[in-house]
């Protein structure tokens, strides 16, 4: 674990401005959202903030949904990934609206408990790709719980205390690397079996892996690979990204942005 990088990744936050639909008289809530967390987790506190300001405000956590720039925001994908897909860090805050109208069809409002389940399943999938889920299945339920709690409560040391078990390659290298690639304006992510080393035993770079995934021959200089709000150099070894540039679900989420 590269402490410097992991720490900075964990500490990355996005400045956000949250308003309520059709209630312009209510002052916006300004806050910093942690990239590694989920809307399902932070929504509770956001709502609490609004209701503590105005007791008569009635917001049903089960029915509201979130939208930004006209696009509904998924609650079960890390906040940082959602932001990177649709935005860049510019001079203004990220405007998010809490919508009380009917959600678009197919939208799922997810509460914290359900999110914990989804999170664990993501974690299992990642470990399944890495080493057939051996490590995660050998962990105690307490450790699963601790991982989730440390995400909710922003406890870096507690999280990595357990997560490093999932990142250990001292006995054996990972079978394949959990990597999801997103492209703007395409709803689904791409993922495939990616070996950390190539046939000659060298470490595969992120650039090569993405080329393989997207079935392109090379990364064009006009494209940038974004994760955690920064440009990821294509030369970064895939195994390094898998250990230090992941989100808490142990996946590397990269958005490929084409600058036209």
């Amino acid at each position: 674990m590269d402490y410097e990088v992991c720490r900075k990744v964990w500490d990355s936050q996005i400045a956000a401005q949250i308003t309520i639909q059709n209630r312009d008289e209510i002052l916006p809530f300004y806050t910093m959202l942690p990239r590694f967390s989920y809307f399902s987790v932070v929504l509770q506190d956001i709502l609490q903030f609004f209701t503590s300001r105005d007791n008569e405000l009635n917001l049903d956590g089960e029915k509201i949904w979130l939208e930004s720039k006209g696009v509904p925001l998924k609650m079960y994908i890390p906040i940082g990934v959602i932001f990177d897909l649709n935005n860049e860090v510019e001079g203004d805050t990220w405007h998010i609206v809490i919508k009380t109208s009917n959600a678009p069809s197919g939208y799922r409002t997810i509460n914290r408990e359900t999110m914990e389940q989804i999170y664990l399943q993501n974690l299992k999938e990642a470990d399944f790709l890495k080493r057939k889920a051996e490590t995660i299945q050998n962990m105690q339920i307490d450790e699963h719980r601790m991982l989730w709690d440390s995400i909710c409560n922003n406890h870096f040391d507690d999280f990595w205390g357990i997560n490093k078990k999932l990142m250990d390659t001292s006995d054996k290298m990972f079978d394949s690397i959990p990597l999801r690639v997103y492209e703007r304006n395409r709803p689904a992510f791409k993922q495939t079996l990616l070996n950390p080393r190539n046939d000659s035993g060298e470490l595969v770079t992120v650039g090569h892996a993405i080329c393989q995934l997207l079935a392109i021959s090379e990364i064009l200089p006009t494209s940038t690979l974004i994760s955690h709000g920064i440009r990821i150099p294509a030369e970064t070894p895939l195994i390094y990204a898998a250990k230090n540039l992941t989100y808490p679900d142990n996946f590397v989420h990269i958005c490929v942005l084409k600058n036209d």
Partner: protein
Amino acid sequence: MSEVKKVQVHLQAVANAPILKHKTFNVDSNRDIAWFTLTIRKIMNLPADQNLFFYISQTFAPSPDHTFGVLRDCYAVKDCVNLQYSTTHAWG
């Protein structure tokens, strides 16, 4: 890799899940689990208060955004995606 082809999906009931008549489906590779869940629910006529979960390799539940093209590339056995389904949390 994921052209709009069809992906063969085989379902297997777990625990008290209702048994389906047809267990094998051919799904467009760009369809995702969310859509698939809705479809199977309709086929089963599952009441709205009951959940439906899918699992791969009896280990994990894939994300609702997972497309079948990706599932085939990653987890297919002999070009077929095997999903276990249940109405309760089967594997955590």
